[in-house]
Structures are given as structure tokens and as C-alpha cells.
């Protein structure tokens, strides 16, 4: 008898499953249609004219403390929550005033900033003053904070606040690029002492700033919600609330935009997805040639330490053809300089290495390697692009094997300089960051980002001279010479400039991706 009862029980369970499955399907449709309204009315605030934007976020957030923030998607949230003394214009990428209204320096050593008055902190932390600037920078420099960006303030001797709206910063040596250091990015973002202390060990997820949006809610595995800061000094932003659902898979993001579940895709980077979205008539919102991807040719390798071999690698590769064939939307090619063409120090007078396999072979032979050499490419994942690179190199007698490792190992090995050839993107707006980090011998791995162990005293001298040079024209000239020497020595072969896309619905306006690959949501609106 018991078995009959069990049979019945199973039957009941099955029918319940069927019923509930049908039930959830019908409510599913309803839910989708009314989701927007439900969300707006759930807040209990007036819904008339209050716009809500949904933006795909592509990874789990890792925290928004300016002292330790990393990865561009987190930086983008921080960019909208915090402010700096200066910031980057969304459209032109130029340095513009933010929390500082103006500044002056006579020697690039002593910098005086005049702060904007009446700027309000989010969440009722009062008015922004010079003390906040002092606290924020001291916090970065304090070893106890273990900030990953403390080196940026290494030259700071003292920070004084003669009054509430003036900050005077003295440097140990002149730095013509100091306005980049105090911009709304990493170490430059101003925090509030009381908010940091209130955040305690959860400070990463309780960012309080002066920016146009504040963090309303963070669910690290699911979504981030930003709400507009009503007391923002430029006035409240057009969009009331921005929800960032975490959608990792690129296909899911594309389908979510097509379904109308989201308004914007933060960074879509697969050729086939971009093609689908473009064809379907979505706005593509792009930023071209944002940063340069480089192939690091390590001097520690016996072959690559010979400049003829490095030149042979460059002549062997037809990068414009590779880009055109595989990533016509994502890559701008050729990139013949490690400095991208939109930077003010950029020069096109650098030597260029047009595809010439015969010359590559000749150079190899001249170096004594007519029979060919073996090298290894350290990489996170092999794709068609690296396979093509492999083929091109093979054609001139360079056998390149792949060593595929996971992300943590990849970063680690690049940082300590344990590779023959590896790849890196150079994210930088500050010419110092770019040139010093990658070319100065003080920054040879593992101390810094000079992972190719490059050192040329002539270049080093010019680099240091440029930093202290007050005359803009002379400085530009020095930077130009640095680039020419760097591209002659070729410790880094520039592969291509990367393009960014934030596809959106047609009614979304004002998405300007700056050269740090960030969007200022204050400019974004919906029609």
C-alpha cells in the first residue's frame, strides 16, 4: 500500500511542477512588461520625469576605495561618485577644473589650488574644504593605508591649507604633469575623513564623494545602483537612478539590450556581437585608439637583447593586415608609437617598421641567427590573432611557442619580467605614467612596469630633463626625442590601438568614453 501512496506523492509533485512552471511563464511576461514601472513606484517617490537607466556591468565589483581601486569598470563607478581637483573632459579628454576652480605654479614645484566654494558631500557630510584634500592625499601617502598609488605622491614634501579654500602642495622636484596626479582618478579622488572612518573595514563598498552620483546599493554578486546626488555642484544630473546589473557573458549582454532589458552595454568587445548590434540599429558610442597594446620584447632573453632581432620581429609582422582581418572594429592599426596619437606629447617622427619579411630575415642573419630562433609568448589565452602573429614570425625563421597561463599568473609573470615576449595595454593619460613607468631603469621589473628591462642612459637623461623642464616647447622637444629613441630601441613593439564601444538604445545620449575608458554619467540623458 505504501508504494501506491508513494506513487501518488510522485504524481502530485510532478503536477505541481507542471502547474508552477506554467504559472511562472505567464507571470514572467507580465513581469517583464511592468518591471520598469514597478521599480519606479517601489521607491515611493514621484515617478513623473524621473528617468532610470540600466547599464550592463561586466564583472563583479571589487570595491571603490580610491586608495586601492583597480580595474576599469570599478574606476568608472568611482569616477562618477568622487571628484578630484581636476578631471578629464568627456569629449576632448582635456584636463579641466573640477573641485579646484583654478591653480597656479611658477616653477612646477609649488602648486597652489583655489577650491570651489559650496561643494557638498554626499549623504550629508557637509561642505567640501581644503582639509578634505589634505586628508585624502595624506591617507594615500600613509603606509598603513597600503595604497597601490602612493608612489604617485612620492615627490610631495608638504601639503598646506592656508584657508578652507586654498591648498598649497610643495614637491621635491618640478613635475609638469602634476595636474594629472590630482585628477579625478585613483589617488586624486578626494574622500571625506568621517566617511572613511565610518566605513571601517567595509570602506571599499561605502564610497562617499562629491560627484554627480552616490552609491545607493551594492550587491557584489548581482548589481550596483547609483542615485543622483541632488546637491551636486553643477546641479542634479538628468538621470535619477542608474542600475548596473552584472552580466558577464557577452552574448547575454547583447540579448539583454535587444530584449530591452538594459539601455546600455558597458564595453562590448566581440566583433560578432558588435556586428549584430550595429545591424540591429543600436547606437555604437565608440572611442577610437584609446590605448596602445604593446608586445614586450624582453631584454633578458638572449636573442631579444639584440636590437636586430627586435627589429626583425617588427618587420616580420604585418599588423594592419592582422587587425583588418580579425578585429576591424576593435583595433586601430598601425600603431607605430607606444604613445597614442591623441596625447599632446605624441610625435609621428618615430621610425616605422613597415612589413618587410626579407629585411627581417636579413637582420636575423646579420645577428647570426640565419637558421632561426625559438621564443615563447606568455599569454592569458591563445586566439586567432596570436596564431597569425605566430605564422608571420615563422615565415622569417622565428619560432614562437605559446605559454598559456591564467590571469593571476599572467600578471605576476609580467610584473617580475619572466617571459620572452608578452602583451600589455598601456592605460595612461599622464605622459609621465606612460614614459617613466615603461622606459625608466628605476622602474625595471619587479619594481615597476618596465617589464622588458629596458635601459638606455641617453633616453633616461632626456626623460628626467623633460620632467623638470618648465618651458613647454623644450619639454615637448625632449619628449619627442624620448619617443624616437624608444622606438629605435624597440623594447616594446606597438601592435594596435584599442577601440571601445558602449552600445546603447537610440534614445540614450551623451555617452562619451574618455581616454581612461570611462563615461561621465552626468552627461548622459534619455529622450
Amino acid at each position, binding site marked *: 500500500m505504501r508504494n501506491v501512496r508513494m506513487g501518488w506523492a510522485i504524481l502530485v509533485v510532478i503536477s505541481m511542477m507542471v502547474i508552477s512552471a506554467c504559472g511562472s511563464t505567464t507571470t*514572467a511576461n507580465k513581469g517583464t512588461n511592468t518591471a520598469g514601472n514597478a521599480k519606479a513606484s517601489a521607491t515611493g517617490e514621484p515617478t513623473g520625469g524621473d528617468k532610470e537607466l540600466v547599464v550592463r556591468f561586466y564583472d563583479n565589483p571589487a570595491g571603490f576605495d580610491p586608495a586601492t581601486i583597480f580595474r576599469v569598470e570599478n574606476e568608472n563607478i568611482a569616477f562618477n561618485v568622487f571628484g578630484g581637483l581636476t578631471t578629464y573632459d568627456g569629449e576632448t579628454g582635456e584636463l579641466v577644473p573640477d573641485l579646484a576652480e583654478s591653480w597656479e605654479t611658477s616653477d612646477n614645484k609649488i602648486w597652489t589650488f583655489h577650491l570651489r566654494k559650496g561643494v557638498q558631500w554626499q549623504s550629508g557630510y557637509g561642505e567640501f574644504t581644503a582639509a578634505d584634500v589634505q586628508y585624502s592625499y595624506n591617507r594615500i601617502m600613509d603606509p598603513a593605508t597600503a595604497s597601490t598609488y602612493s608612489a604617485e605622491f612620492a615627490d610631495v614634501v608638504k601639503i598646506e591649507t592656508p584657508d578652507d579654500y586654498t591648498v598649497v602642495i610643495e614637491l621635491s622636484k618640478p613635475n609638469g604633469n602634476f595636474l594629472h596626479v590630482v585628477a579625478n582618478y585613483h589617488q586624486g579622488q578626494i574622500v571625506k575623513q568621517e566617511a572613511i572612518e565610518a566605513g571601517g573595514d567595509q570602506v571599499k563598498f561605502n564610497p562617499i564623494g562629491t560627484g554627480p552620483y552616490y552609491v545607493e546599493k551594492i550587491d557584489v554578486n*548581482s548589481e550596483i545602483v547609483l542615485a543622483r546626488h541632488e546637491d551636486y555642484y553643477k546641479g542634479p544630473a538628468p538621470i535619477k537612478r542608474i542600475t548596473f546589473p552584472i552580466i558577464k557573458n557577452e552574448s547575454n549582454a547583447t540579448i*539583454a539590450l535587444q530584449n530591452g532589458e538594459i539601455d546600455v552595454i558597458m564595453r562590448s568587445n566581440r566583433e560578432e556581437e558588435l556586428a549584430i548590434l550595429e545591424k540591429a540599429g543600436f547606437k555604437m558610442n565608440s572611442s577610437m585608439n584609446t590605448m596602445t597594446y604593446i608586445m614586450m620584447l624582453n631584454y633578458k632573453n638572449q636573442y631579444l637583447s639584440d636590437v636586430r632581432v627586435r627589429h626583425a620581429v617588427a618587420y616580420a609582422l604585418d599588423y594592419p593586415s592582422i587587425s583588418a582581418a580579425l578585429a576591424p572594429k576593435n583595433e586601430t592599426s598601425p600603431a607605430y608609437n607606444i604613445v597614442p596619437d591623441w596625447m599632446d606629447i605624441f610625435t609621428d617622427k618615430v621610425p616605422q617598421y613597415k612589413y618587410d619579411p626579407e629585411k627581417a630575415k636579413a637582420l636575423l642573419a646579420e645577428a647570426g641567427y640565419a637558421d632561426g630562433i625559438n621564443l615563447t609568448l606568455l599569454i592569458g589565452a591563445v586566439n586567432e590573432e596570436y596564431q597569425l602573429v605566430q605564422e608571420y614570425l615563422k615565415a622569417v625563421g622565428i619560432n614562437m611557442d605559446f605559454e598559456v597561463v591564467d590571469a593571476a599568473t599572467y600578471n605576476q609573470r609580467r610584473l617580475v619580467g619572466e617571459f620572452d615576449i608578452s602583451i600589455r595595454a598601456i592605460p595612461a593619460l599622464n605622459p609621465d605614467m606612460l614614459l617613466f613607468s615603461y622606459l625608466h631603469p628605476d622602474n625595471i621589473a619587479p619594481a615597476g612596469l618596465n617589464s622588458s628591462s629596458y635601459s638606455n642612459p641617453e633616453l633616461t637623461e632626456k626623460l628626467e630633463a623633460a620632467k623638470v623642464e618648465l618651458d613647454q616647447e623644450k619639454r615637448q622637444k625632449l619628449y619627442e626625442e624620448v619617443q624616437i629613441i624608444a622606438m629605435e630601441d624597440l623594447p616594446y613593439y606597438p601592435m594596435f590601438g584599442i577601440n571601445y564601444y558602449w552600445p546603447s538604445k537610440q534614445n540614450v545620449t551623451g555617452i562619451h568614453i574618455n581616454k581612461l575608458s570611462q563615461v561621465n554619467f552626468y552627461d548622459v540623458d534619455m529622450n
Partner: protein
Amino acid sequence: MFGYMMKRFLQLTVTLFGVVTLVFFALRLLPGDATAAMAGDNLSGEALERLREQMGLNEPLYSQYFSYLGSLLRLDFGNTLITNLPLMEMLMKSVPITMTIALITIVLAIAISIPLGTLAAYMAHKGKKTLDNIITWAAMVVDLMPAFWTSLLLLLILSLSLGIFPASGAVTFEDPVMLMKRIAIPVIVLTITQLAILTRMTRTAVLEVLNEDYIRTARSLGMSEILVVFRHALKNAALPIVTVLGISFGNLLNGTVIVEFIFSIPGIGTLLVNGIYSRDYPLVQTLILFYAFIFIVVNFLTDIVYKKIDPRVQF
């Protein structure tokens, strides 16, 4: 039974300790640590050294190990390494989601595969090969479809073309309707992966029993076919099916890791993948401990059910 349970409990403790130790050292044998995972393209080695110091990654391995064991004994799982969030809180949020997916899947899989398998066995027994062949072949075909491929296929059909289920949206118990909509495709994918083995196993087990003498006896006594199949055959075939079910649940948890990641479902699978990518040692250790615990519990339950089904089973 009590003595048995005590013995199993002791085994459980030893196993968990072994898992902790193994995972602790295996994770740290991997090259690169949490700071390297954070490095990306613009952090220098010097900056990361400071961070490593602060995260306690510069401590000798044995002292890290003992302090970890100490905190485990106090049932203090600590915080994640990179985000510094309380692990207990993260588990409390993600475990119910994964368990909901797993339980619905297993119920669905049982509800579909056992009748199907029984039907196939019965047809085979009766010499009607066509239906049996169709079911067996269908089971083989779905078994060959990789989960990620099925996921994308169903996403294209059910989400993009038919618009039944969304491709994105928050997954929380505060919004149960949305939750169900979001886990629907993952559940279907996982059910498909479970169907094949369960159906085939049921078919084999039932078929074997149907050829036994006592079935012939039951028939000769004039019992109806339904009673013969469900009361006698299925019951006696239950033992191997339960065994497979126990193993299946383990496979199912593996499967959730893939589908959760594809659909950005904030369950433990997603947490685990993130943890491994970012070398978040405490997170990965706690999750693997949790998985081990679940496996042990499921095994334990399987054993109990065994005893219930077949009192002759000796522990």
C-alpha cells in the same frame, strides 16, 4: 544505526580536515596571488608588495595555515581577501540560490527520467523496440550536448526569439517571480544534463528486474501490468537508481558552476569561479569546504535511503 552515524560523523570530520589542508596548500602552490590578480596593466610590483604585506600574504605558509585552522575551529570563516566582505554573509546569500536551482533540477530530472526509463525498459521487455530505441537515442543525444552550448541555444530561443525569459536581471529572494524567471533556463539546461544518465540507469535497472522470476510469478498471479511495473519492478530497481542519483547530485553541483557563470546567477558557482580567478584564498577555501560538506551529507543520505529501501543492507 546510532553507532553507524557516530562513525560516519567522525569520518566526516577527518575528511573535512583533509579537504581543508589539501585545498589550503594546493591553492598556494598556484603561481600568482590575489595581488597579482588585481595587477592588471597599471599596477607596479612595488605597489603590490605593499598590498601583499597588508593582506598578510607575506607571512610564512605554516603560520597562515595554523591561523586559518584556528579561525575555522571558532567557526569564523573570516572575510574575502580582495573585497573584504564577510564570507558567512556571502554564503547565506548565494547558497539558497544554488540550492534552489539544484533541488528544482533534481526533482524535474527524477520526474521525467524515471517514467521515461521505466517506459523504455517495459517496451524493451515487451519486444517493442521502436519506442525504446527513440528514448535511448534521445538520451544519448542530450548527453552529448555541452552545457554551455545548450545554454546559448536556449537563450537564443527562449529569451531572444520568444521573449519568455529575461537574459539579465537581479536574482534575489526579495523578488521571487524574477528569481524563477532568471533561473528557468539554467534549470532546463541542468535538467537536460541529468536526464540522460538517469533515464539510461532506470531503463537498465528496471529491465533487469523485469526478467526476474518473481515478476513472472506476479504476472502469473494475474496482477495488472501497472502494478507489476511500479510496485515490483521499480521498487526492486530503486537501489541502483538511488546510487546514481547520489552521484548525479554531485555532478549537478559541478554543472551549476558553469550555468551560473554563463547566466550571471549569483550562486556559489559564480562565487567559486571569481574566487579562483582572483586567487581569493579564504573564499575558495570556504566554498570548497562547503561543497565537500554537501557531498558528504548527500552520501550519508544515500546510505540512509539504502537502508530504508533494502533492510538487508549492512553498514
